[in-house]
């Protein structure tokens, strides 16, 4: 019964979405206030209905209602409650429900916080949101109904893929979708601005918080996915340039560019039509990501659906959304008035460089990810693009960007002085040299590229800090004066510093992986294996019983010299229901380095393959990502960006001098 109510709510939501995508738009064109405000009530109502449908699906999972096909195929009564709930989005239909739920959440948020938007803009934004909602609700109802009943109802379900039964992966999709779908708001604002033919600083101030929020969620989502790959897959890698990883990385890159170019629109009224284009591209890449992952055109762990009808529908949706918005852009963008002028060496110039490099990097990844698909479809040879391609391209495109990250914020708007900026960065330069030399010393020569990357991370970190020191006039004014300045710096300033520091931390973590130590040994109980100054001692391998699996569990004592550092327990789990085995790695971290153990196969003679890695600085990769996201959140809490403030008058010139 509840499942039918959920289905019914979805149909109502679709009807409302149709209403929302047409009436406010016509109202805005005809200046009919009542029609315009309809968008806000339908957005909220749509959210309530989709939330009800989503709750109905969760209810079916929690109560293990196996008469619902989706629950039968993806759940099992023995599963822990957490995974019953997170299992809702561990499959195609459920994950599309999550997509639409988040979309309607953002739609309702725009309606709630949109009190002081000009009514016509608000109506158009919500209408575009309604169109996206129509597309995806239609997709669910026509091709992937999560409430389909089975008669007669089976006794128990098939269970969730054991690999997905993991806390890290359980919350990876919601964050990723918050990011993907969050960019839909920037998209809707861009399309609405194109329809209106007007982009100004107020528009940018409206778009930036939404973009920032989506970007933070996407950063966390990508980091979670990579962290999950690191600790589950059992060979210590954390990024594989897998098509699906690329699918989430492309919107992140372009979204990052959008974040930065929106600043230029807000502060300098320039780069307007470029920013609009970026907003369209960011969401388009999110849609492409959804298409790549969900249509099954690229085989991967993530590809649930291999139903050609779904692929076709998403492809059509993609054509309408991307083709439509880009056509609108081509038609209307020339009407946008060009804004302020600036010299190539200026804050704007630096941000343009940032944008160019980020979008080119995204384009290269796009090409590398889709090239095999094109080759296959056009009857060419079957091939894949090797990971070295992405490594090379990325290294060369992003190196200049990372050098510039430290310089850009020190340049003045409009016309900057590069020499003066560089003079202020002498400390950062010195730090980079020191970090490089230290790296060289520790590594005893070592891979030169990794040393350079590490030095670059040092440069960026010190660059971000010296920029802050410059703002508060540290050591040049009295400490009290510096403290006063530090307190009065806008939060957005701290957000930027934190995010740039996070990038440096992540980069250091990536660079240091060149110095990892690896051992793959067959160990009998009682054997010792040395790694990076530690000694691993295998005590035993025992059989253990879990709630829905059995496991072989190794007991390893880690010693440094004579003292015991840790007991580690890598496992190999076997899930009888799915006839699958997965590994559970054991990781001992001190935040400077990870000791990573994975249990392999038994050799049948009492010995076990044990894979061990010592990975310096690897936790920094994710710590840095969290810092970047936190930087976004801090920036989001800035009073000037807070959602209600946007429509108020511009802050007086004096208060903005700190920028």
């Amino acid at each position: 019964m509840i499942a039918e109510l959920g289905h019914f709510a979805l149909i109502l939501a679709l009807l409302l979405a149709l209403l929302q995508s047409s009436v406010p738009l016509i109202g805005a064109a005809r200046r009919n206030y009542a029609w315009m405000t309809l968008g806000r009530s339908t957005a909220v109502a749509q959210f309530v209905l989709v939330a009800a449908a989503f709750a109905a699906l969760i209810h079916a999972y929690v109560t293990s209602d196996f008469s619902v096909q989706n629950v039968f195929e993806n759940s099992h009564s023995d599963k822990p409650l957490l995974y019953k709930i997170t299992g809702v989005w561990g499959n195609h239909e459920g994950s599309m429900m999550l997509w639409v739920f988040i979309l309607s959440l953002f739609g309702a948020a725009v309606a709630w916080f949109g009190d002081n938007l000009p009514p016509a803009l608000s109506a158009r934004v919500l209408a575009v949101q309604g169109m996206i909602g129509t597309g995806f609700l239609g997709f669910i109802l026509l091709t992937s109904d999560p409430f389909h009943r089975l008669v007669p109802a089976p006794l128990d379900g098939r269970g969730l893929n054991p690999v997905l039964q993991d806390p890290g992966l359980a919350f990876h999709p919601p964050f990723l979708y918050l990011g993907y779908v969050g960019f839909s708001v920037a998209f809707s604002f861009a399309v609405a601005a194109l329809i209106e033919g007007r982009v100004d600083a107020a528009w940018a101030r409206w778009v930036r918080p939404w973009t920032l929020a989506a970007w933070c969620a996407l950063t966390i989502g990508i980091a979670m996915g990579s962290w999950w790959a690191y600790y589950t897959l059992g060979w210590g890698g954390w990024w594989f340039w897998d098509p699906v990883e690329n699918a989430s990385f492309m919107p992140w890159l372009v979204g990052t560019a959008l974040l930065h170019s929106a600043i230029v629109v807000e502060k300098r009224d320039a780069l307007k039509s470029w920013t609009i284009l970026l907003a369209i591209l960011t969401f388009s890449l999110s849609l492409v990501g959804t298409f790549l992952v969900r249509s099954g055109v690229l085989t991967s762990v993530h590809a649930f659906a291999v139903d050609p009808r779904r692929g076709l529908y998403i492809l059509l949706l993609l054509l309408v959304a991307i083709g439509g918005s880009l056509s609108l852009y081509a038609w209307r963008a020339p009407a946008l008035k060009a804004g302020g002028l600036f010299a190539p060496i200026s804050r704007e110039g630096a941000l343009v460089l940032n944008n160019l490099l980020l979008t080119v990097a995204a384009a290269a990844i796009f090409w590398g990810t889709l090239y095999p698909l094109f080759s296959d479809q056009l009857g060419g040879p079957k091939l894949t693009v090797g990971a070295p391609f992405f490594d090379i391209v990325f290294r060369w495109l992003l190196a200049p960007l990372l050098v510039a990250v430290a310089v850009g914020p020190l340049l003045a708007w409009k016309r900057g002085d590069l020499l003066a900026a560089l003079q202020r960065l002498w400390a950062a330069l010195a730090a980079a040299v020191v970090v490089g030399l230290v790296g060289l010393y520790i590594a005893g020569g070592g891979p030169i590229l990794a040393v350079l990357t590490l030095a670059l991370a040092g440069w960026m970190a010190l660059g971000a800090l010296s920029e802050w020191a410059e703002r508060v006039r540290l050591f040049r004014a009295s400490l009290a004066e510096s403290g006063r300045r530090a307190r009065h710096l806008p939060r957005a300033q701290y957000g930027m510093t934190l995010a740039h520091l996070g990038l440096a931390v992540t980069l250091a973590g990536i660079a240091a992986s060149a110095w990892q130590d690896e051992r793959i040994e067959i160990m009998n109980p009682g054997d010792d294996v040395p790694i990076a100054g530690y000694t691993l001692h295998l005590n035993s391998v025992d059989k253990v019983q879990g709630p829905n699996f059995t496991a072989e569990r190794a007991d390893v004592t880690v010693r440094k010299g004579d003292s015991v550092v840790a007991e580690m327990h890598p496992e190999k789990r076997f899930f009888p229901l799915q006839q699958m085995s997965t590994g559970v790695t054991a990781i001992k971290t001190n935040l400077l380095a990870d000791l990573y153990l994975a249990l392999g196969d038994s050799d049948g003679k009492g010995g076990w393959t044990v894979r061990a890695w010592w990975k310096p600085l690897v936790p920094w990769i994710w710590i840095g990502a969290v810092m970047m996201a936190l930087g976004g959140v801090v920036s989001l809490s800035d009073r000037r960006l807070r959602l209600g403030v946007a429509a108020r008058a511009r802050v007086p010139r004096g208060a903005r001098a700190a920028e």
Partner: protein
Amino acid sequence: MTRKRRRLIAVLVGMGCLGVAATLVLSALRDNLVFFYSPSDIKAKGAPQGRLLHIGGLVEQASVEHEPDGKTVDFRITDGSNTVAVVFRGPLPDLFREGQGVIAEGKLDGNGVLRADSVLAKHDENYMPREVVNALKRSGHWQEGGTPPTAVGQAKP
């Protein structure tokens, strides 16, 4: 400098950068394309030595041998008609077993043995790499909707 002239220079510089980037990307792409071969493709057309390639198929029954060092594994990949011998040193994926569809990435040595750098077997019991399915279809060992012949009756761990 006039506004027009300045814009022209900016556009030219931008185009130049894009050109350099495009050249870089395309040349990097050409060097890093990894072509897919089935064992029958190699038999029929041969495959370049010393270039990174993918070979896909099923792990042949009773072909997996662990060498005494505990790290090196020898096995054969079959598409039902032909086989290719593979030597791999490193951690095998959890789902690696005889009869399972896999893709091995590596270079062929002078004896036609694939020296693999990595072996992919994805995390799903129903999963079969698309390339492998197509290769099996081409060699006539795959029926639509059916299970591949070598996988039938396979012992599950």
